């Protein structure tokens, strides 16, 4: 038996959660856009900057040695958080940068040619779509996509037909940032492996909720963003299998990733340094390590049960309100506590404004997933997304506010 999860104790670590909006307590349901940061993370970064800050990997002086150690310890902590080794963890400025690195490096390496195919899903965030479009345009490769069923799950039968001999890359989200559905990673990896294609996992929306073991997942490469897992902005991770990273050339170049440089030519270090040109996000790495240490130290089973309860309450609550249409409404798959929806007759922007007046912060718009919205006949939707600090009461406040939307805007059933 797991103990009930102590959400009050968790909340106490987040200074911003005490904010009031127009006299009402803030209900922050926009964690999928960016998460709030616990005190531990803010303190870790500030402590570092006030006591140990110096350029890493370069100096003989005391601070430099201290900073280098903290920085490399941070790499080990974050690598461990996703199940990998420090050598497999490349710092990036975020998931978008990681995906561009992979697509760009494959392009520079000449790994794609005319006739080759790249497969993504219809549920892609633009960050896992446009870099592949650009790579396809530059190489003559063809970009194809796995369609999404009406309930939001991937059309795996179609995937089987799509992934074939020509497929060189299969890139997909672990969890779509609109649908909240956990995609069948093992099945997609199996399909890709059977044709020798590289798999690239967008783990942005799974990392804040699920326990990740990337090496065991079978994917070749994966990306995530620090600011979505209780860490700072401007840092993220690219994880890759040793032999996969080893075969990739650098995407960007500069200091700290070289061995010998002449005016004519440079030789590059092995991974991960090969991909880390220039001064790295040092204080952010240390803060991100604090984030994953904090998060990892929670009772993850109890935390998961808490989030699962939030998810059900959110989805079932929305379902029971008139005129609400859910995006990705299925019991046939695992989900995270994130739900996008459309309010019939009221534009998403107006819904968001109404909820804001009740202190409820949600995201409105296309959530960087225009193709997916188009597939559901929408240009925008409203998305509520919870985090480990969200309470059932907050979900209820949100649901209560949503019930008032159509009345306020004079839409009658």
């Amino acid at each position, binding site marked *: 038996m797991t103990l009930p999860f102590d959400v009050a104790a968790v909340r106490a670590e987040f200074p911003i959660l005490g904010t009031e909006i*127009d006299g009402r307590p803030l209900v922050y349901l926009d964690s999928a856009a960016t998460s709030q940061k616990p005190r531990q993370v803010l303190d870790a970064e500030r402590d570092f900057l006030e006591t140990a800050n110096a350029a890493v990997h370069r100096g003989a002086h005391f601070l430099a040695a201290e900073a280098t150690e903290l920085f490399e310890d941070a790499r080990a902590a974050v690598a461990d958080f996703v199940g990998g080794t420090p050598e497999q963890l490349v710092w990036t400025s975020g998931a978008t940068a990681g995906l561009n690195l992979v697509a760009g490096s494959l392009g520079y390496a000449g790994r794609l040619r005319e006739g080759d195919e790249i497969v993504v899903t219809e549920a892609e965030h633009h960050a896992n779509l446009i870099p592949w479009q650009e790579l396809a345009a530059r190489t003559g490769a063809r970009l194809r996509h796995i369609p999404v069923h009406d309930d939001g799950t991937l059309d795996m039968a179609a995937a089987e037909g799509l992934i074939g001999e020509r497929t060189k890359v299969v890139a997909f989200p672990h969890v779509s940032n609109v649908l909240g559905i956990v995609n069948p990673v093992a099945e997609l990896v199996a399909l890709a492996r059977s044709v020798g294609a590289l798999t690239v996992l967008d783990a942005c929306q799974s990392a804040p909720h699920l326990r990740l073991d990337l090496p065991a997942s079978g994917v070749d490469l994966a990306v995530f963003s620090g600011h979505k897992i209780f860490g700072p902005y401007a840092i993220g991770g690219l994880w890759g299998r040793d032999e996969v990273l080893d075969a990739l050339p650098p995407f960007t170049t500069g200091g700290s990733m070289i061995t010998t440089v002449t005016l004519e030519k440079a030789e590059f270090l092995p991974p991960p340094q090969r991909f880390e040109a220039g001064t790295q996000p040092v204080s952010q790495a240390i803060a991100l390590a604090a984030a994953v240490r904090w998060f990892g130290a929670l009772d993850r089973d109890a935390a998961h049960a808490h989030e699962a309860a939030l998810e059900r309450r959110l989805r079932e609550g929305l379902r029971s309100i008139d005129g609400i249409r859910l995006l990705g409404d299925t019991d046939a798959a695992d989900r995270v506590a994130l739900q996008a929806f459309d309010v019939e007759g*009221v*534009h*998403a*922007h*107006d819904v968001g*404004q*109404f909820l804001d*007046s009740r202190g409820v912060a949600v995201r*409105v*718009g*296309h959530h960087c997933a*225009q193709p997916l919205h188009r597939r559901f006949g929408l*240009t*925008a939707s409203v998305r509520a997304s919870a985090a480990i600090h969200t309470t059932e009461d907050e979900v209820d406040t949100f649901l209560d506010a949503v019930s008032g939307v159509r009345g*306020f*805007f*004079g839409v009658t059933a």
Partner: protein
Amino acid sequence: MSGLESLYQELILDHAKNRRGFGLADPGAHSATVHQRNPVCGDEITLRVDVDGGRVASVSWEGAGCSISQASASMLVALLDEDGGDDGMPTADAETLIAKFREALRSRGQIPLDEETFGDAAALSGVSKYTARVKCAMLAWVALEEGLRQA
């Protein structure tokens, strides 16, 4: 909820439902058709303006978006109709109106829109306190500005 009610006045919700000038008219001899988009929220408008003898002869539009953007487009048409009389508003006057409208909306609640000048659109005064919504309210007006430049 007084903030919200000042933003979404009855008049705004009415205009958003009964949209003046909605449905593109056939292009005239001196007309321009302009497409504007708010990349942040996806609001879109296609606006057609017909200019005749230095006057705004007609404005029609199509588009999708939040109630603020829809109401604002509708109110703009109403204003041009009412103030322009039979011949239509001189283009120079329309340009001045747009500039004043922009100034007020960007004023963060400092400059109200007066009913004398802006008619129903004066109800959009409340938008200027919501910086994220200013672009919604401006969409049709920017489209008209661009159209007058082209026509």
